[in-house]
């Protein structure tokens, strides 16, 4: 069964999308609503631990996601909107699944057995199913000629235990090209943005971001497209180039391409204003 057949999907927004990156959250939900896919928030979800908890306390880094696994209702896939939350949830799930002591502990902690059938998916997995089902064929050419730099950051890289899993490299290009846009070829699409170093060692994050933004500029892209709130924030706040390339969420661009965006306040939250570009491309009024 494809994920697409499941009309009700448990949804884990994560801290960034629930707060600072609300525009990513709203555009994602708006997009899937169009396809009659219901995203239902995991009740009372907690932070997955982010990049920090597992960095200093590995045990706690495994426990925090496990509460969310226990809260997710059975029989529905669990969609993690943020690539980083996805990895934390998946890694916790793998660690518990392969160790009988951890499974016993899980049962003792949450009063229910570990569900080995709980499927944790990314936004990309759902989108790939939609694409395979032909959802993006004959959808008009709203993005015609828009030159974009697909930016995956570290979301394609995974720990060795997950290295044989399906990877969605090229999906942004596949979907956006079918809507008329043109990808550029560039060198930095899988270069990490620096995540938390943006706060604790801004010199390092800025150096990485500078390479990415400079690469996008030189490639001739009109915009960079990302699916990650952390990448989005870092590219915007740590870039020092004049005439910086706007950074759009993949879900924002999809919503615009399908003609039901933008929602109120999506683009006013961007530090690099994408509206002049979008108006010039007749994607918004």
């Amino acid at each position, binding site marked *: 069964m494809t994920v697409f057949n499941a009309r009700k999907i448990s949804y884990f927004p994560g801290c960034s999308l629930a707060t600072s990156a609300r525009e990513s959250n709203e555009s994602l939900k708006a997009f899937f609503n169009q396809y009659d896919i219901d995203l239902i928030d995991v009740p009372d979800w907690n932070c997955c631990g*982010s990049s920090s908890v*597992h*960095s*200093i306390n*590995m045990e*706690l*880094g495994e426990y925090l996601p496990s509460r969310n696994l226990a809260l997710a209702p059975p029989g529905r896939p669990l969609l993690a909107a943020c690539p980083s939350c996805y990895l934390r949830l998946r890694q916790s799930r793998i660690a518990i699944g392969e160790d009988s002591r951890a499974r016993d502990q899980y049962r003792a902690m949450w009063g229910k057995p570990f569900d080995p059938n709980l499927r944790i998916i990314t936004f990309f997995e759902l989108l790939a199913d939609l694409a395979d089902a032909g959802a993006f064929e004959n959808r008009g050419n709203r993005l015609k000629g828009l030159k974009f730099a697909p930016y995956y950051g570290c979301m394609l890289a*995974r720990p*060795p235990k997950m290295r044989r899993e399906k990877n969605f490299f090229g999906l942004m290009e596949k979907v956006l090209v079918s809507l008329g846009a043109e990808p550029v070829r560039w060198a930095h699409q899988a270069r990490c943005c620096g995540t938390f170093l943006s706060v604790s060692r801004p010199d390092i994050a800025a150096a990485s971001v500078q390479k990415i933004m400079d690469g996008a500029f030189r490639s001739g892209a009109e915009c960079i497209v990302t699916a990650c709130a952390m990448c989005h924030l870092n590219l915007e706040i740590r870039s020092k180039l004049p005439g910086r390339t706007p950074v759009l969420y993949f879900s924002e661009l999809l919503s615009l391409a399908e003609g039901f965006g933008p929602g109120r306040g999506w683009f006013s*939250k961007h530090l690099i204003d994408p509206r002049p570009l979008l108006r010039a491309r007749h994607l918004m009024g």
Partner: protein
Amino acid sequence: MNPIVSLSNPSGFSGEIMEQTGVNTGLCWQCKCCSGGCPFSDFMDYLPNQVIRLIQLGLKEEALGCATMWICVGCHTCSMECPVGIDMAAVNDGLRQMCREAGRKPAEPDIMAFHKEVTHSIHRYGRTHKLEIMMRYKMHKGNWLADFNVGLRMLSKRKLDLMPSKVNNVGAVRRLFEKTGETIR
């Protein structure tokens, strides 16, 4: 004579790392693909493959004192490059934790301070509250003017919420902290 590196049964410091992280660093043959792929290797004191070598040679002091594990953000680019599938991010997790448990001063105290602020925020609310994390981190640094502009722009664009998003049953989250002995000052 005992070999320095035993593939099947790592002992000494390699054994401790395997115990802590499940990663057998004895498998590494020093091809340096990890270091070639690492986007932040320019800022590390030891390259990722050199950290593995320190572990293989049992040089615990040097390994726990290095900056590399703190600079690593866990992007997993190195793991994708590694021909034997060594989980370098997990090794760095293990080293950081050992450094902390040993009560050693981390080579990058600011990065440790940031991780602690995030962890404490989760203890407080069950979720991260970015504005408070930033403010408390600034208190730690004592440098209020650094990044002042960035903070103001984020506030004006409403990218930093004034109020935290909270878990209702925050007690359940705090019990996980107690279980792992994570104390909050």
